[in-house]
């Protein structure tokens, strides 16, 4: 995943000059501007016309303006404020039954038309070794339409000073509450995307995302031990209103840990982080063995992502990602044989619709109106994630609408939509769920994660671990990781809380493809219980 590269990026000094992957740095006010739709349509029509004249049977044009803002702090210092912009056009065609792609940052109609002809030439050249022509599912003509993330407050419009002051207040609160070090940042995204195709669609979209991560560290100087606690926020498809910290957006666990859904109180979480990081320094180490795990949505999203989201990507299943991300255990014969992926309680759906989610858009990057569909129904595998040139393999005639490119210069391909665990139908609170657990561990927040290239064997850590004994939360423990085999894990799902506990988690940095592309995706769930899962102790001694 590209998160590691990103974390290195955030530590930049002068090295930040090159801003790899995030485009060119711009002034803050640039982030508030938009391009005229009429101009975008004229550019798109130039490309569509040139491609068609050159022999393309299909063409789509994406004019993308990708804006990012980073505010990066540690303790009492603002380390960096960076604004970036990347603008250009990507043109994809089918000629001789084969895909071709070209992109340019020069938006003159002459340059765009030349790129369209280049894409056709590449398609024709590649068609010589093509063994089967592209079968593109029909996408209805949308005409001229638009979609916008339903934000309340555009984060790009909030003055940098206000953002820096918020983060410095967060850091001060953590230090005052016992932290030794704290890193916090804001990462704001606005994708202004215009899509046009020879199918007769002209789609203008304005997509916003926000992320406010922090890491709080506590140190015991005498023992040399250190422990960190990451913030419990999620990256969201929202505006700056996510940081309002309203009471309606909070969920309290039975043992008093505050979790967040539609609103984040960063200062409150910083104080809790400091106290909990310090508590971790002396928490007892877990005794390895089988435990019933009660997994909070702030943790479970990542397990869903790795063990359900990825193995059900159809291109992985078919072998197109074999050299990098890998293939999948969930092969297509399992679809036909009604593979029992999880217990009867497990229904997992894909969607590009959920309000506040990172995946929510009106239309995907090949002009298909987005929707919701089931992947696992009552425990049985029922579908995959597929796009226009794949759905015929599933015997379907319409794309699922989950095609995405991370830049105007990247080729769009199948990317994971939001993949979420449906809430339990019967009324069930977390407290009631825990009452039934004799020997268990309650895990909050995501931590270390690793899974094999076919998505069978995974290991997950977390942020906060609480031992459950005889139906009661006994106290914090440390050094916990669980190991699982995907089908056994989901078949061990014994209870799911009701919709009142449903929350989203997610990532800005789901990586896939060569050259690599990132994508932002959310995963929703209510707290769920998994019986008899293998827990290991991760403490080691370096002597």
């Amino acid at each position, binding site marked *: 995943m590209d998160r590691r590269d990103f974390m290195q990026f955030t530590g930049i000094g002068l090295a930040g000059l090159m801003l790899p992957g995030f485009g060119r740095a711009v002034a803050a006010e640039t982030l508030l501007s938009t391009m005229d739709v009429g101009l975008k349509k004229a550019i798109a029509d130039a490309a569509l016309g040139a491609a068609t004249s050159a022999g393309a049977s299909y063409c789509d044009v994406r004019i993308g303006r990708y804006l990012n803002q980073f505010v990066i702090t540690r303790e009492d210092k603002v380390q960096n404020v960076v604004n970036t912009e990347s603008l250009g056009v990507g043109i994809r065609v089918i000629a001789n039954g084969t895909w071709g792609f070209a992109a340019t940052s020069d938006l003159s109609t002459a340059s765009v038309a030349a790129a369209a002809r280049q894409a056709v030439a590449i398609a024709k050249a590649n068609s010589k070794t093509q063994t089967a022509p592209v079968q593109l599912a029909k996408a209805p003509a949308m005409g001229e339409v638009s979609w916008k993330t339903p934000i309340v407050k555009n984060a790009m419009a909030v003055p940098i000073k206000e953002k820096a002051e918020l983060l410095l207040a967060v850091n001060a609160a953590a230090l005052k509450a016992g932290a030794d070090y704290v890193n916090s940042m804001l990462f704001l995204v606005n994708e202004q995307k215009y899509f046009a195709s020879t199918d007769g669609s002209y789609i203008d979209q304005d997509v916003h995302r926000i992320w406010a991560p922090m890491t709080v560290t506590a140190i015991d100087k005498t023992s040399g031990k250190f422990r960190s606690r990451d913030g419990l926020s999620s990256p969201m498809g929202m505006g700056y209103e996510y940081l309002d910290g309203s009471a309606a957006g909070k969920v309290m666990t039975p043992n008093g840990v505050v979790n967040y859904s539609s609103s984040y109180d960063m200062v409150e979480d910083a104080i809790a982080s400091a106290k909990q990081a310090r508590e971790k320094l002396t928490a007892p180490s877990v005794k390895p063995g089988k435990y019933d795990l009660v997994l909070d949505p702030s943790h479970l999203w990542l397990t869903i992502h790795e063990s359900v989201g990825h193995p059900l990507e159809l291109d992985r299943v078919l072998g197109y990602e074999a050299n990098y991300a890998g293939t999948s255990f969930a092969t297509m014969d399992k679809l036909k044989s009604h593979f029992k992926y999880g217990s009867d309680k497990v229904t997992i759906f894909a969607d590009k619709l959920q309000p506040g989610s990172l995946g929510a858009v009106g239309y995907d990057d090949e002009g298909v109106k987005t929707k919701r569909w089931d992947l696992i129904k009552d425990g049985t595998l029922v579908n995959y994630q597929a796009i226009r040139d794949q759905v015929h393999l599933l015997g379907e005639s319409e794309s699922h609408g989950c095609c995405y490119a991370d830049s105007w210069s990247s080729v769009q391909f199948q990317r994971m939509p939001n993949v979420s665990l449906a809430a339990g139908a019967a009324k069930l609170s977390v407290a009631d769920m825990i009452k039934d657990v004799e020997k268990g561990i309650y895990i909050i927040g995501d931590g270390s994660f690793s899974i094999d290239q076919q998505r069978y064997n995974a290991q997950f850590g977390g942020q906060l671990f609480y031992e459950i004994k005889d139906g009661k939360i006994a106290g914090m423990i440390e050094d916990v990781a669980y190991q699982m085999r995907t089908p056994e894990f989901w078949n061990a799902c014994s209870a799911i809380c009701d919709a009142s506990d449903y929350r989203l988690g997610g990532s800005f940095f789901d990586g896939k493809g060569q050259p690599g592309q990132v994508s932002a995706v959310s995963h929703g769930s209510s707290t769920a219980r998994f019986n008899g899962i293998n827990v*290991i102790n991760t403490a080691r001694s370096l002597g």
Partner: protein
Amino acid sequence: MKLFTEAEARALLEKVIKLSVADECSATLTGSIDGNIRFALNNVSTSGIVNNNSLAVQVAFGKRTGVATINEFDDGALERVVRRAEDLARLAPENEEYMPMLGKQTYPATPTYAQATADITPEYRAQVAADSIAPCKAEKLVAAGFLSDGAGYYAFANSKGNFGFQRETNTNYTCTVRTEDGRGSGWVSRDVQDVSDFNAQDEIKIAIQKAKGSADAKALEPGKYTVILEPAAAAGLISFMLFGFDARQADEGRSFLSKKGGGNKIGEQVFDPRVTMYADPADPNAPVFPWDDDGLVRTRHPIIDKGKVAFLNYSRYWSKKQGKPEIAQPGNILMSGGTKSTAELVKGTQKGILVTRTWYIRMVDPQTVLLTGLTRDGTFYIENGEIKHPIKNFRFNESPVIMLNNVDELGKPVRIAGDESPFAMMIPPMKLRDFTFTSLSDAV
């Protein structure tokens, strides 16, 4: 869009520096032509060429700094990018840790450029794909791979008279070969600076052999085993550990290299005495630019010397605060070893496990650098100096610090970069005792 020559780059950078009214100004100009071809299911899936030049300008008014970048180079564009950086700097909060720009430095040239790589054509890339696919098809195997290559330059100048320019090339090839029934999988990776040193027809044989040899894998109980990690398998673990070689983190008490009671472990014996790593920008096998991100001149120096920690990265700010000399951050990691190949290490092994590749490595506990990950694409049981049979993949939970204290023997280092490591590295195959596998994976 063509790449800039040294004279063109110098002229442009000097023009930019003159435009700025800030206290300090630096400008960095980079450009590259990057090509790639991707194939899967024995077919080419995508191929492309990206050509880009980019200018970044950083200015400082006192301790307020601003950065702006642009990829247009007419006079108006240059003026705009400088003014934009200045506007951002005036708005920025003071950065107490800002360090003044360096004066003129002398950078000895390093051999980072190979003309043969710069001359790669689309036809060459197509041939690499064809040379990978054809032998697989002939053996009823399925190939998926990626070749990426690039030729570019890096140039910079600042208002204190410093200037640097150097060209570089790179080529990275990976290919995964699977049996049609999905029961066997093999892999090969090769990273070269000079594409004359690369031959896909030879490399693909390794992946084919591993794919055929890894079918019908038997399960072995998880536990502690003697392992032979091929260089690519070891590199991922070592890279993770090297991210922790930061003086500030260690001095702050949040690193495995922190000393109890304060300070760091420079000079302490942390690894087996046979473990030596050093940096050398001019190493002919893994050359890197002669400057680091701050413009400091890179030199040859030990990082780990006979098991003792010899070097930690000090940022310019941290070295000043701690009263330490400014030393450039290494661009490559060269680990010493012996003369034996992986095959020769296998011959000398009574019982053990050969690991081709490690995968999805993540930090479990930064206190001990405990890492987890899995084996992939060829894991074999060794008995009496021979590979007896393929075994199912394992998940490991192991610290490279512990691993590098359990060294049995080190082989001959080979170049590793690209997918397997963010550093240019020379890494030997390693025979290690008591490597910890914690569970089995059914993945092939």
